[in-house]
């Protein structure tokens, strides 16, 4: 492929070695040839455009086959995977970009964005979009997907008592979980930023994220555990309550507070995430802006709300969006701690039960689609942010 480099340079009459575009030459060329003549004149260029991708794909396919076979020792396979993955993906981008640049200028401009965005969209389509469409299709059929039942599954999903319970609970998750995670994340980011113990503090707040959900389940079991009066408490919360003279409670069974106790777990887990992103954004606020504010006589609070918050607004929206969507999707915590019992049901665990426990693909599909519909307001808000952006 190294040998092809001079070819790349030589066979590209419209481009100088630095990749600049000589507009005059282009206009000349465009005016003097039609399509057929263009093809004839650039036959060699076309051939190379075909051969190079073919060779590259063959090489990548070999890598693919090798990785699929996986017969070599694991470290080798993993290393090749990284090389193939990153190198291959990079090669793919470079190659497609090069290909697109071979085309006439107008085509280049039109196609280049798809070079950038294409691979991601292809993968997303295969892995997520198509399955979603399939689920949408099946949501109009019965459990075995053999009989068309129209909107019956949706009616069920919107009227079933467990589903209504989960709507209410998800709302609690959204509001309390997202709100507090972002607030705590921001608070900690600000405090840590000004503290000597920044790295330690941040690491300790981030620590819960590193614990898998299984581990988090065990940890919080040690907090919420209930033993009857008279027995020794092994749950921290009950030990605390008992030491103050109160009665131990089975926290996770107390409606309607138990959802809040579960949300507490999520806040504990996710604040680290919010903190990481918000901290990076905070550090990006230009010092000059803050200085200017101080010189103008603003106090700390005014600087915070008037300068800092607007500046990192984009990140706050991003963090809030992802956590909010995470709350819509919340499953593991509920599943591990209560399985939706005692009034803690949420949409995602309903989806899981319908799909996998009851093998009802129709109802499961309907619940999933309702989840998607629930995210539309978030999408609209993000779209508005998008609109203000002008691209090149």
């Amino acid at each position, binding site marked *: 492929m190294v040998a092809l480099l001079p070819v790349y340079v030589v066979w590209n009459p419209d481009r100088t070695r630095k990749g600049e575009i000589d507009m005059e030459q282009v206009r000349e060329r465009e005016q003097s040839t039609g399509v057929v003549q263009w093809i004839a004149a650039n036959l060699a260029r076309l051939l190379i455009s075909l051969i190079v991708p073919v060779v590259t794909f063959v090489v990548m396919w070999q890598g693919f086959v090798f*990785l699929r076979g996986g017969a070599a020792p694991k470290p080798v396979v993993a290393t090749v995977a990284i090389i193939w993955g990153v190198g291959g993906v990079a090669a793919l981008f470079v190659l497609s970009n090069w290909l697109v640049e071979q085309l006439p200028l107008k085509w280049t401009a039109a196609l280049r964005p798809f070079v950038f965005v294409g691979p991601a969209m292809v993968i997303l389509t295969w892995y997520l979009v198509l399955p979603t469409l399939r689920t949408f299709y099946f949501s109009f059929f019965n459990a075995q997907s053999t009989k068309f039942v129209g909107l019956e599954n949706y009616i069920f999903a919107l009227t079933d008592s467990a589903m209504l319970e989960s709507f209410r609970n998800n709302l609690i998750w959204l509001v309390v979980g997202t709100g507090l995670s972002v607030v705590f994340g921001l608070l900690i980011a600000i405090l840590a930023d000004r503290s000597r113990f920044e790295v330690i503090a941040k690491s300790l707040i981030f620590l819960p994220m590193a614990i898998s959900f299984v581990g988090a389940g065990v940890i919080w079991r040690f907090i919420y555990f209930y033993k009857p009066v008279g027995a020794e408490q*092994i749950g921290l919360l009950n030990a605390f309550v008992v030491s103050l003279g109160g009665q131990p409670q089975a926290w996770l069974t107390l409606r309607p507070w138990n959802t809040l106790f579960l949300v507490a777990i999520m806040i504990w887990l996710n604040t680290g995430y919010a903190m990481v992103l918000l901290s990076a954004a905070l550090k990006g606020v230009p010092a000059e802006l803050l200085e200017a504010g101080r010189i103008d006589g603003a106090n700390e609070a005014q600087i915070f709300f008037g300068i800092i918050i607007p500046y990192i607004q984009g990140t706050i929206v991003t963090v809030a969006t992802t956590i909010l969507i995470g709350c819509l999707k919340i499953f593991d915590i509920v599943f591990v701690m209560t399985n939706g019992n005692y009034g803690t049901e949420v949409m995602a665990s309903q989806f899981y039960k319908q799909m996998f426990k009851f093998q009802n693909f129709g109802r499961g599909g309907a619940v999933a689609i309702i989840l998607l519909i629930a995210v539309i307001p978030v999408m609209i808000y993000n779209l508005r942010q998008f609109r203000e952006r002008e691209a090149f």
Partner: protein
Amino acid sequence: MGRKTSLSGILVNGALLLIVLIWTVPTLGLLVSSFRGQEAVRDTGWWTAKPAELTLSNYDQVLGGKEYADPTLPGGVAKGENMSNAFLNSLTVTVPSTVIPILIAAFAAYGFAWMKFPGRKVLFVIVVALLVVPLQIALIPILRDYMQLNLTGTFLAIWLAHTGFGLPLATYLLFNYISSLPRDILESAFIDGASHFTIFLRLILPLSVPALASFAIFQFLWVWNDLLVALVFIGSRPEVAVLTQRLQDMTGSRGQDWHLLTAGAFVTMAVPLLVFFALQRYFVRGLLAGSVKG
């Protein structure tokens, strides 16, 4: 940021200390419990632990292999497999699954942020919408496709799956970051005659290191701690089982040995924390630190 007077410094550090303490207490409970025996864990609170009763038996079983009663063997005790195989498997699954999506998402994020093309808004909105799709809906269709491609049970299968599932978040996070870069940086680059591709490679990528590092950590964590995707696409045969599976397995057929999870959770936590520490300096650094000049 300059250091403030000592009073506000004390306030800040004090508040921080309090918050950190509250945050860490639950984990502390787990740590203490991991050094206690099965009976102690189930009968008494972890804060009552005395140094004398501490034991390494949980860690021994988690790392070295679980002990089973086996009357047919001389000592009456058999040892199960240790974790090293599962550890290697987890690493093999996680590293490519983290690295591959980053590049793809970075290109896409740049495309959405700074390039004009028809359908730009629609496609982006789709990406955001995909954030909410529960990945369980993809399990059956993808498995079918994998069966036809003969991919099931291979590491490649799971790398591609994690790439697919991680792309929405990656694209979204990187989009936020890349689109907030100052417009004039790109403008001046275009004036200099650079193409989108060059700008991306030589300007955007280096500038985006904080965001790339952030996402890398999250993706690493998520894949490292994942259980379901691994079970479905790669299976639980010993030569490919990942750490999370081995841990779940260890709790016994009916979950009676969950005290082993206490040690298990810490053992599996070690690597993601290492990754966090290694990468955290990249996103602690500021966005514009020394990048824009020239």
